[in-house]
Every structure is written in C-alpha cells, then in structure tokens.
C-alpha cells in the first residue's frame, strides 16, 4: 500500500468478496515473489561455491520500451471485445464525489423505461449503499469496493462482469453503466473497456474544474453539467465552464441536466439510445 496516500489493491472486494489476484498467490507474504531461484542456482552451480564471472559485462542494459499500463490496457481490450460481442453499450461515469452520479443513474434507469436491459457496476472505497440504491430500481448492480484504492481498473471490472454474467444479469444488446470511484484524477488513466467516459460536473462545483483537472475532461467524450436547477442560486458561469472544458477537449459534447426538473433528460436518453443502437449494429 502507498504510504503517501494509502492507495493500493489489497482491500478490493466485489459484492463484498475479495477476488483472487494471481500475482498475490505465490509470494510468502502475499506480496511480491522473493528473490529469484536463478541467483541461488548460479551460485550453487559454480565450482567451490564461487559465483561465475563470465566474459560479459556484469551489467547489461535491456531495452524494453514497454507501456506501463499495457497489462491494464490489454485486459480492458478483452472486456471491450466481450461487451462488443454481446452488443452492450458500456459507459464509464467519472466525476468528483458528490456530483450526483448515483442519482443520475437511478433517474436514468427509471426514465430509460427498459428500452434495453440495464446493468450497473458501482465503484466506491467502502459500503454497498450505491448498489442498493440501484437495485431498488429493479436493475441488477454489482458493487466493487476498492478499499483504499482510488480508481477502478480493468481487472476489477472483469471480475464485476463475471459476477453479472453468473447472475444472468449481463444481457445481449443492453446498457452497462459503470460508476467509477468519485475522483477527478486517477480514473482518467485507466481504460476499463468502456465505449466512452462520461464526465459529470455539478454546477455547485467551480466552473474552472476542467482546467484544474484537465486529464479527466480530456479523457471524456461527453460532459454532463448536473444540478442545473440550482443555477438561480449560484454564481456558476455555464458558458465559461463549457468553454474551459472544450479548451482541454476540443469539440466535447455537453448536456445540461437536472434530475429534479428533468431538464436535459431527453438529450441524455437520446444520446444513450444512439450509443446502444451503434453498439448493437457493430
């Protein structure tokens, strides 16, 4: 675990159950494998217990040029391929905590009115509260608890998809909504296999969030400005927020939405329907 911020994988659970991570299986401390047998081997093999010094430079450089996120990206591709095979339109919803993601999901499921089946993956550090809110709408939901982790990764989502499949809750030609951990930084780096990242910015936040946290807004294909029913009580400058978002992500689509008044839901549901239609055709 990271001693600066506590981030790490050790405490991740899916519906309360800790998944087995292969790389944890072999180490005596459940962490990294101990020093190589290779080293011990070389020493034993040498005459009189001496270590060989072959006629090569003792220090060699190995050129790798290996992407650090390659393993996550490869797993995300597997998720993406499986979702595509089933014609599932998958979205990764990202925002800071408190922007109204779960309320948006609950309202969306109700207003979607079973145009297609919907399943939800909820990501939070702790509690199954959000999954329970989703299940109350009648839609199946899996809760990933990341423990101290600050983001979902492709491996966790693969586990959640397997859980949904086992419950026959991941239907062909359906809509899959993945609510990431509320965090405007870390989730930007991790592909989960989704079709799009959707960023949610509530008008109770600052309009300069897109410039303060450019990575997330740049990674998004749609921005939802939420809680717009509160605009009369706030100094939030909608045009400035959209301008700044497009400064980091040119051409970013924006939907202004309120779960209270229902404003913007027509656009949002139409956007979802278009995405589902494309996923089904593809």
């Amino acid at each position, binding site marked *: 675990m990271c001693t600066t911020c506590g981030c790490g994988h050790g405490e991740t659970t899916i519906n309360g159950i800790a998944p087995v991570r292969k790389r944890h299986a072999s180490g005596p401390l459940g962490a990294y494998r101990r020093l190589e047998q290779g080293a011990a081997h070389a020493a034993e093999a040498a005459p009189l217990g001496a270590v060989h010094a072959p006629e090569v430079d003792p220090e*060699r450089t190995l050129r790798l040029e290996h992407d650090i996120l390659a393993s996550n990206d490869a797993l995300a591709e597997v998720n993406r391929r499986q979702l595509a095979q089933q014609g599932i339109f998958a979205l990764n919803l990202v925002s800071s905590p408190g922007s109204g993601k779960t309320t948006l999901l609950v309202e969306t499921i109700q207003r979607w009115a079973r145009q297609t089946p919907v399943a939800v993956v909820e990501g939070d550090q702790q509690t199954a509260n959000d999954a329970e809110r989703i299940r109350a709408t009648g839609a199946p939901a899996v809760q990933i608890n990341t423990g101290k982790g600050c983001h979902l990764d492709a491996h966790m989502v693969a586990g959640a998809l397997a859980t949904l499949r086992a419950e026959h809750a991941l239907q062909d030609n359906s809509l899959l909504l993945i609510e990431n951990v509320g965090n405007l930084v*870390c989730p930007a780096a991790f592909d989960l296999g989704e079709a799009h990242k959707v960023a949610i910015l509530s008008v109770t936040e600052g309009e300069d969030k897109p410039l303060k946290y450019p990575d997330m807004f740049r990674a998004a294909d749609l921005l939802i400005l939420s809680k717009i029913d509160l605009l009369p009580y706030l100094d939030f400058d909608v045009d400035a927020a959209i301008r700044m978002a497009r*400064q980091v992500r040119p051409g970013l689509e924006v939907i202004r939405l309120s779960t209270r008044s229902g404003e913007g839901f027509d656009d949002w549901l139409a956007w979802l329907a278009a995405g589902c239609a494309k996923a089904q055709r593809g």
Partner: protein
Amino acid sequence: MHELSLAENVIRIAETAARNAAAARVTRVRLAVGAFAHVDPDTLQFCCELAARQTLLDGAEFLVERTPGQAFCIDCKQDVALERIGFPCPQCGGFDLRVTAGDEMQVLDIAVM
C-alpha cells in the same frame, strides 16, 4: 493517487524482463513519462522505490525522463510544442489541438546483472 498501481506494473515489467534474461537483479530502471501522462513523476519514482522492496529490483535506481508534449493545431495546420493540456497553440492562440505526443508512460530500459 494511482502512482503505486503504476509502480507495481513497472516492477512486474522489469522483473519479467530480468527473469527472461536470466539476470540476478535489476540495478537501474529508466522510465519515460510524457508531459501529459496521468502521473506525477516524483511520486511515481518514490512509489517504485517502495514497490521494489523484496523483489529483483530491491535497491535499484529509478530514473524518470520527461518527454515533451506535442500537438497538431487544426487552425494553423502544423505540429506545435505544447507545454500543458489547456494551453493554447503557441503559434496562433487557438485551442483546436490534437495531441500527437506526450501521453506516453513507458519502461524504456533496465540495467541488469
């Protein structure tokens, strides 16, 4: 932050390469982090040192090279150097930029013994 997850990947990548080369330990790791990569280089370096404990990389030196950001400006139709996301084109001041370099996060090479 997510740097520890990334550091764990760095250790795994380097250990696998070292094992495949029948090396006993890794003494140095050179990383490339683009100007727009989703990572703080100092934190990544620190987390790599932590994650290296009790592995073939225990005590290894971690070097992070920053690679510059570049974008294609749709308005002035040329590649331009870009310092940060959200900055305008240094030539024409426009924001219609497509990033062409600066996202990379790589293990460039490792020194093994």
